[in-house]
C-alpha cells in the first residue's frame, strides 16, 4: 500500500483548505453556482436529486483497515450509515451536506485519502485489476504505475478543463480484469525478449452512448516514456476534442472522426517535438513508489491445507462459497477472497458502516491489512491463508457478507439510477433487486455458471451494460420507464459490445425476460459451455425467439 510522504500530505491538506475557502465563498454567495460547479466537481461533490453526493477516490481500488474504518466513521457521522462502492472502484456517499464537506475531506486526509478529480472534465481516478499483486497470472503489479499516473494527473494545470471526463485503466496481467479496452486510455504491460517492460497504449475505448473498443496506438512503449506519451495524447485531445456537444466530446469520438491513423500521427508529432526531460519517468521515483507495493512476507506454506479441505468436505455452503468467491493466489497456501456485496435482494455495492468495520478487521487479522474494491462493486481480501478461509467465511456469514455468487447471476452491477442520479431516465436498483430475487436459489446460480448482468439507469452507461453478457439499459418513453436488453457483451480479453435484442420491457417484466434468456441458454448449451461462449456460437436468434415469439 502506498504511503504518503510529507509532500503528498501537504498537497492534500492544501487542497482541503482551498476547498474550504471555495465552499465558504459559495455559501456567502461570492461565487455563483455556475462558477462553483467545476470547482466542487473536481473535489468529487455532485448535486444529485435529493442531496449532495461525495465520491471518494480509492486509487486503483486499494484500501487498508484505517482507511475503511474512516469511511465507516464518515458514513455514520455525516451520512446515513452506509456507502456505495462504484464501478470505478470508488466509494460514494449519497446524503452529504455542502457545509460538512470540507470537514469530511479533512478527515479523509488524516488517512491519506481524498476526493480529488473523482468527477469533472479532468483525468479521473485511475483504475486497475482488483487482484493486483496477488493474482497467479500477473506479469507485474500495475499499482506502482497507477500511483505514478495518479500523482502526475493530480491537478495537472494543462489538463483540468478537458472537453469531457477522462478515464485511464492499467493492467499488469495477460487476463485483463481492468477493462482497458473500454477506457479513454488503457495501459497494458508486456515484456520483450530481453525481459524489459513496455506498455501497450490503447486509446479511445468507452461505453456511454457510443460504445467503442479502443485502438492500440503503441504496441510497446518503453516505461520511462510513459508520462511524456500520455501528455502528448492528452494535449491532442485537449486541443482538438469536440466542445460543441457534450455527447460527442469524449476522446473516442475524436479518434473516430479523424480516424485512428490521423490521430496516431497527431500524437506522434506532438510527442516528437516536445522536450521530454521534465516528463521522463525517473527510475529513482519509480523505485521509491514500487517499494511500497513490495509483496508481503508470505509464509512458506504447503499448497494443500488440511484444515481447509476438511471444512470444505464437511460444509456444503462453505464449499459453494469457495467455488465462486475464492481465486488462485500466486503464493502457495494462500488464496484471494472475494466478498460479495450482492446479497439476495440487496442494493449492489452498498455496505453498511458495520460491514465496513468487519471487513477492515478481517483484513487486519488475515490479509496483511489489505482490502481491494473491484469494479464489479465487490470487496477483496487479496492475501489470505487457505488455513484461515473457514474462519473468515464464518465471520462474513454473520454479517451477510458471505453470499457465494461472485461472477454468477446474482453478482449484478447496477448504477445508482433514478433513485439518486439526476441524469437517470429509469431506476436501476429495484431492477437489480428483483432479478436478484428471481435467481435467489444459489444452487441454480451455480448450475447456470458464470453470467454477468449489468444495469444502467440511462444511456451514460455507468452500469457498463454494453459489456455485460446480459445488459439492461433503463430508458424513458413518454414518462414510462422501460428496459432495453442486450446480449453478448464482454469487457474481458475478447472484449465485445452487446447486441440489442428487440423492443424493451416494462420494469416488472424484466426478471421474467432474463429468466427466458437463461432458460434458452440452459436448454441449448453444450457440456461445459459458458453463457458467453454459447451466445457467440448460437447468435441472437434463439434468444429472440424465446423472448418475442408467441407474445
Amino acid at each position: 500500500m502506498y504511503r504518503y510522504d510529507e509532500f503528498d500530505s501537504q498537497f492534500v491538506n492544501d487542497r482541503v483548505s482551498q476547498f474550504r475557502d471555495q465552499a465558504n465563498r459559495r455559501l456567502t454567495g461570492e461565487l455563483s453556482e455556475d462558477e462553483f460547479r467545476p470547482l466542487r466537481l473536481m473535489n468529487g461533490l455532485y448535486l444529485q436529486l435529493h442531496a449532495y453526493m461525495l465520491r471518494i477516490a480509492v486509487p486503483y481500488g486499494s484500501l487498508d483497515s484505517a482507511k475503511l474504518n474512516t469511511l465507516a466513521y464518515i458514513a455514520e457521522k455525516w451520512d446515513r450509515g452506509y456507502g456505495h462502492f462504484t464501478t470505478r472502484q470508488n466509494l460514494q456517499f449519497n446524503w452529504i451536506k455542502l457545509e460538512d464537506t470540507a470537514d469530511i475531506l479533512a478527515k479523509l486526509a488524516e488517512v491519506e485519502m481524498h476526493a480529488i478529480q473523482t468527477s469533472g472534465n479532468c483525468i479521473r481516478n485511475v483504475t486497475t485489476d482488483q487482484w493486483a499483486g496477488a493474482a497467479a497470472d500477473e506479469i507485474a503489479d500495475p499499482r506502482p504505475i497507477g500511483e505514478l499516473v495518479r500523482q502526475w494527473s493530480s491537478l495537472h494545470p494543462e489538463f483540468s478543463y478537458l472537453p469531457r471526463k477522462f478515464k485511464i485503466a492499467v493492467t499488469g496481467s495477460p487476463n485483463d480484469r481492468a477493462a482497458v479496452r473500454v477506457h479513454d486510455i488503457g495501459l497494458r504491460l508486456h515484456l520483450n525478449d530481453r525481459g524489459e517492460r513496455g506498455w501497450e497504449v490503447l486509446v479511445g475505448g468507452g461505453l456511454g452512448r457510443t460504445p467503442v473498443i479502443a485502438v492500440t496506438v503503441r504496441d510497446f512503449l518503453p516505461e520511462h516514456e510513459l508520462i511524456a506519451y500520455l501528455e502528448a495524447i492528452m494535449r491532442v485531445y485537449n486541443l482538438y476534442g469536440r466542445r460543441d456537444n457534450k455527447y460527442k466530446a469524449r476522446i473516442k469520438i475524436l479518434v473516430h472522426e479523424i480516424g485512428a491513423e490521423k490521430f496516431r500521427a497527431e500524437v506522434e508529432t506532438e510527442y516528437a517535438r516536445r522536450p521530454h526531460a521534465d516528463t521522463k519517468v525517473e527510475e529513482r521515483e519509480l523505485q521509491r513508489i514500487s517499494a511500497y507495493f513490495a509483496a508481503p512476507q508470505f509464509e512458506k506454506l504447503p499448497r494443500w491445507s488440511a484444515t481447509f479441505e476438511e471444512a470444505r468436505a464437511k460444509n456444503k455452503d462453505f464449499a459453494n462459497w469457495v467455488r465462486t468467491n475464492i481465486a488462485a493466489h500466486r503464493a502457495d497456501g494462500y488464496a484471494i477472497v472475494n466478498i460479495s456485496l450482492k446479497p439476495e435482494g440487496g442494493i449492489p455495492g452498498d455496505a453498511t458502516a458495520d460491514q465496513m468495520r468487519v471487513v477492515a478487521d478481517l483484513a487486519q487479522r488475515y490479509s496483511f491489512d489489505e482490502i481491494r474494491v473491484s469494479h464489479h462493486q465487490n470487496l477483496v481480501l487479496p492475501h489470505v491463508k487457505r488455513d484461515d478461509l473457514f474462519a473468515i467465511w464464518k465471520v462474513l456469514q454473520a454479517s451477510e457478507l458471505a453470499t457465494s455468487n461472485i461472477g454468477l447471476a446474482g453478482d449484478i452491477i447496477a448504477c445508482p439510477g433514478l433513485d439518486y442520479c439526476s441524469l437517470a431516465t429509469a431506476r436501476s436498483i429495484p431492477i437489480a433487486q428483483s432479478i436478484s430475487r428471481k435467481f435467489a436459489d444459489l444452487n441454480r446460480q451455480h448450475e447456470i455458471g458464470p453470467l454477468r448482468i449489468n444495469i444502467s439507469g440511462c444511456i451514460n452507461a455507468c452500469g457498463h451494460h454494453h459489456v455485460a453478457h446480459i445488459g439492461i439499459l433503463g430508458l424513458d418513453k413518454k414518462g414510462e420507464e422501460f428496459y432495453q436488453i442486450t446480449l453478448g457483451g464482454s469487457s474481458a480479453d475478447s472484449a465485445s459490445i452487446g447486441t440489442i435484442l428487440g423492443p424493451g420491457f416494462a420494469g416488472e417484466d424484466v426478471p421474467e425476460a432474463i429468466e427466458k434468456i437463461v432458460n434458452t441458454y440452459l436448454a441449448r448449451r453444450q457440456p461445459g459451455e459458458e453463457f458467453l461462449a454459447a451466445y457467440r456460437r448460437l447468435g441472437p436468434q434463439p434468444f429472440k425467439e424465446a423472448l418475442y415469439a408467441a407474445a
Partner: protein
Amino acid sequence: MPLLKNGSIIIDDWITLGLDDPKPDSGDIVVPYARLLKEWESLTDHDGRLGVIFTNIDRVEALTLFLPRLALIVLPFPSFTDGRAYSLARQIRETGYGRELRAAGNVLPDQVQFMLQVGFDSFEIGDRFTAEVWLKASRQMSLAYQRGLYRTPGQHDVWSERHREAEPWLEQPHAG
C-alpha cells in the same frame, strides 16, 4: 480592462485594434491573428511593439514565423471551462517564446494558478473581485506534482523536493 501582472493590478496600455480599425502611427498595438496574417508586411514595420490575439482553433505552428516580432500574445477563454488555451500556452512557451502571454475572456480567480503554471503571465480581470481575492487564489496550492511548470515564489514541485539529492532541476525561467 485592468490587468493582473507580476502580483499587482495595473492598467493595460496596449491599444487593441479590431480587423478594420485604423492603425495609429505609433504605440503598442495588439491585433487579431487574421489581421496579422493579412497585414504582416506593414505591421512588422510598425513603430511600437506588436501583439496578437490568437484564437482557440489556430495552430501554434502557424505562429512560429511571427514570434520573434511579437511582444504580446493574447489567448482567449471563451468560457472558463474551455481549457484549450492551457495547451496553447504551453505549446507557445515550448517554442521558446519569452515575452508576455496574456489570458483574456472568462478568467476567474480559481483558475489563475493553473494559468500561471502553464506560462501565462498577465490576466485580463474584470472588477468583480478584489485584488486580495486574486492574489490569494493565485497561490492556493504550494506544491505541484508535475515538473517543468512555471512557478511563483513559495511554490515547489514535489519531485524536486522529494529528490533533493538528485541533480538539481533546472528552473524554467519565468517570462515577463
